[in-house]
């Protein structure tokens, strides 16, 4: 009975703005590719594009997990160290079972299974400490970051843990072989991305993550088991780290204290460049994927030119990240008058 006023043409503009925001990361990536091509046409060679995709798989897969954690209002700084520790334990165990079960597929499967169990366990520890222990996620994961990093150093005696040479032969194809022209890691990446996307935007669980990140007490009052959902986001993060590790280990067959250093920052950066909000309540897997691609492409482009001093790589990287995010602010052109 309240007269529905004729709809103002305000909605279309909102939709449009939203699209711009969604398109932002894609545009930034496109721009980077154009720059890459202009710098060196070899940038668009099939080989390089394949390298680029394969490389972004690690950060990308981890960032998919980070999207869940961040959407639910948490943060996980431990992923890089976790990856290193899982690789380390995988390698040690696989090397040790050579005598009993040989160097075949069984050993590799054992290693992968172990990685998954460890990832889930490590994620669960982070989650339980945050929810049951009621410690800020930042502190928990800063702590576990230090712990995992030093454990891998300890296992490797400060050096490098190397996978048995024969197992490496069995395991190698997981990184180096292709299917339908795309390397396996890319397929894993695609798989994880699709699952992540479905989970976040097509299931009740995804909505719970968003609700918790948006307003924890509203979520709680809606009879959502907040602690369980939050813990589960860390478990998903751990699982993603496992997947990343499983495709990382066959690449060079080794793990050391420098494995995965700063992956946490890269993953979080990918998530945020993709448009997910750091304080939680809004997450976009699609954006995260683009964010990961953007980050990898920046590194790749910098290797393609010697115009800038090597020392300034970090400067370029920083500038490009800031500019890429600045560009996707759909409202910056509307300009001055807005104060809000």
């Amino acid at each position: 009975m309240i007269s529905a006023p004729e709809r103002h043409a305000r909605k279309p503009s909102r939709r449009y703005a939203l699209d711009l925001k969604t398109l932002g990361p894609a545009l930034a990536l496109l721009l980077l590719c154009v720059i890459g091509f202009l710098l060196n046409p070899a940038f668009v060679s099939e080989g390089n594009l394949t390298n680029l995709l394969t490389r972004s798989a690690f950060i990308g897969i981890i960032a998919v997990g980070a999207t869940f954690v961040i959407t639910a209002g948490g943060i996980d700084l431990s992923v890089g160290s976790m990856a290193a520790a899982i690789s380390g334990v995988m390698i040690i165990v696989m090397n040790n079972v050579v005598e009993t079960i040989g160097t075949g597929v069984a050993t590799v499967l054992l290693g992968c299974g172990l990685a998954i169990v460890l990832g889930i366990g490590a994620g669960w520890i982070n989650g339980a400490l945050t929810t049951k222990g009621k410690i800020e996620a930042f502190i928990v994961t800063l702590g576990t970051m230090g712990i995992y990093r030093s454990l891998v150093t300890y296992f490797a005696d400060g050096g490098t843990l190397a996978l048995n040479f024969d197992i490496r032969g069995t395991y190698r194809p997981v990184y180096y072989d292709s299917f339908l022209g795309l390397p396996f890691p890319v397929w894993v990446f695609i798989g994880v991305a699709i699952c992540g996307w479905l989970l976040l935007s097509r299931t009740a669980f995804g909505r719970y993550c968003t609700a918790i990140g948006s307003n924890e007490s509203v979520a709680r009052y809606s009879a959502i088991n907040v602690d369980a959902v939050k813990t589960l986001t860390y478990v998903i993060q751990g699982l993603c780290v496992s997947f990343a590790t499983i495709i990382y280990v066959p690449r060079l067959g080794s793990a050391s204290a420098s494995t995965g250093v700063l992956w946490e920052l890269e993953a979080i950066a990918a998530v945020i460049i993709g448009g997910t909000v750091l304080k939680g309540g809004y997450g976009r897997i699609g954006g995260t994927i683009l964010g990961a691609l953007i980050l990898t492409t920046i590194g790749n482009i910098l290797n393609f030119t010697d115009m800038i001093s090597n020392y300034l790589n970090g400067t370029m990287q920083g500038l490009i990240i800031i500019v890429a995010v600045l560009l996707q602010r759909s409202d910056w052109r509307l300009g001055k008058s807005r104060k809000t």
Partner: protein
Amino acid sequence: QEKIKIGVSYPTPTHAWAAGMNWHAEVAEKRLEALYPDVDLILVNSPDPSAQASALEDLVAVHQIDALVVLPFESEPLTDPVLNVKKSGAWITVVDRGLSQPGIEDLYVAGNNPELGRVSAKYMKGRLKDGDNIVILRGIPTVIDNERFDAFMEEIKGSGINVLDHKHANWNRDDGFQVMQDFLSRFPDIDAVWAQDDDIAIGVVAALKQAGRDGNGMFVVGGAGMKQIIKGIMDGDDLIPIDVLYPPSMIATAMDATVAHFKSNGPIAGRYILGATLITPENAESYYFAESPF
């Protein structure tokens, strides 16, 4: 009876070479403490220069050390802190990276970074001809990296060998792999790679094999003397035919000499500069330590 306390301070191992050094230090500690019951060696490692300065303070304030063996993280920032240790009356042995002010240390034991670059360049010149192309993967931007790189470039100058580009691969396998992948996409013709370090070299080899460009006389020169690489040289690997030694065992040498200062009659002070030996299939065996992690 008062023990002779000797502090040993070095950077936290974050790459294989440093791990090797750590291993040699720990082995030397056990050996020396078993040999001389009145000697106590205290091993401390630190993750950055500032932490190392703190560790030095703690060695003096808490352990009241009689001598210090230090492998400085960086020369400049640790000069003053080491000087302070010196002022407490301790004997000072500096390893690998010299301090920026002369005369602080009683004993200096070091490898030879410029020599490593020069030896590598000489080998390149021996195998490549005029117009051949190489790429360089450098370490972490530091003085050491600069010394090696500058000496290499100095030596290679005028040989007609083209250095296509050089990028930092941070003494890290993953970075070595990625940088080499990009070099391979970018340059269709590369004849050899100077990886400067064995960890980088391993990444480079993986990238070469992936791209199928490991044939045609392609070779990689690393550095340091990692045991896998030396093993490969012994087995006649084509891709990494030689290595240039930068021995992580130098810390043990320094510890031995420092203990000797308290235990032997002969004079110990002075400078020991270890050479950057070229390891070839012929001499490889004598540089191979099976138990070392490096």
